[in-house]
C-alpha cells in the first residue's frame, strides 16, 4: 500500500471534528445522535489505520468491539429518544428542561 497512513488519520480527525461541531450546533436529538455515530466511525478508522501501521490485529479487534458497543448504545439511545418524545412531544434538546436548576 502506497498511501501514507497519515492521510487516513487526518481524514479521521476531520470527520471527528465535523461530528463534534454537529453535536454542538444541532438541536434535534436524533441528529446529535447521528453526529455521535460519525465520531465513533472516525475513531474506528483511526484505530484500523494504526493497526495497519503497527502491523498487528489488536486495533482491528478493538474497532470490532467498538462496533458492538455502538450497536448496543444505538438501541438504548433511540429507546430513550422515543420515550422522551412520548413524554414531551418533541425531540428538540431545548424542550427537555425538567431537570433545569
Amino acid at each position, binding site marked *: *500500500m*502506497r*498511501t*501514507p497512513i*497519515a*492521510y487516513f*488519520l487526518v*481524514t*479521521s*480527525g476531520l*470527520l*471527528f*471534528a*465535523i*461530528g*463534534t*461541531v*454537529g453535536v*454542538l*450546533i444541532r*438541536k434535534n436529538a*436524533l*441528529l446529535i445522535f*447521528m*453526529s455521535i*455515530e*460519525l465520531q465513533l*466511525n472516525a475513531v*474506528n*478508522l483511526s484505530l*484500523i*489505520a494504526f*493497526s*495497519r501501521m503497527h*502491523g*498487528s*490485529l489488536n486495533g*482491528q*479487534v478493538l*474497532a*470490532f*468491539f467498538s462496533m*458492538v458497543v*455502538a*450497536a*448496543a*448504545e*444505538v*438501541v*438504548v439511545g*433511540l*429507546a*430513550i*429518544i*422515543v*420515550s422522551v*418524545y412520548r413524554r414531551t412531544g418533541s*425531540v*428538540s434538546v*431545548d424542550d427537555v428542561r425538567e431537570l433545569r436548576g
Partner: protein
Amino acid sequence: MPLDNVVFWVFAPIAVASAIAMLVQRNAVHAALLLIVNFFCIAVFYLLLGAPFLFAVQVIVYAGAIMVLFLFVIMLLGVDRGDTLRERLVGQRPAAIGLGLALALEVFFAVRAGVGFAAKAPVGFEKVNAGGNAQALARVLFRDYFFPFEATSVLLIVAAIAAMVLAQRKARAITQAGAEAAGRGEVA
C-alpha cells in the same frame, strides 16, 4: 499514481463532503442518507487498510442495521420536518464552528509531528492476515480477547432488555385501560 492512492483521493472528499452536508442538512431523513454514504466511504478505507472483515461488518452493521433503525425512528416519530435554527445561547454556533476548526487543525499538526506524512505503511501485512483476515481476526479474538468478547454478549442482552423496558409503556397503558373498561362493566 498507484491504485490505492487513486481510491483514497476519490473516497476521502466524498466522505468529508457527505459529513459536512449532513451537518448543514435540515431534513433528518436526508441527513441519515448522507450518513450512510459516509459509512460506505469509511468501509472502503477499511478495505484499503487491509481489514476486509471489518469492511463487511461496517456495511452490514452500520450502513445496514444501525441506519435502518435510525430511519425507522425518524419516520415513527415524524420528526423530519426540520430543525429550528433559533439559537438559545448567543454565539453558540460560531463558537462551535471555531472550536471544531481548531480541533481539526490540532489533529493535523499532531499527526504531522507524531506520524509524519512521508511514512508509508510497513510491508508484510499479508503475514499478519495469514489464512485470510477473518481467520486471523478470529484467532486473535478467541485467544487473546476471549473474556471481553463474552462480556459483550452480556452487554448486548442488557441493551436488548433495556430497550424493551424503555419502550413498553404504551403496552401497559393499553392493558390498564382495558382493565378499567372491564371494571366499569363496559363491553370491550
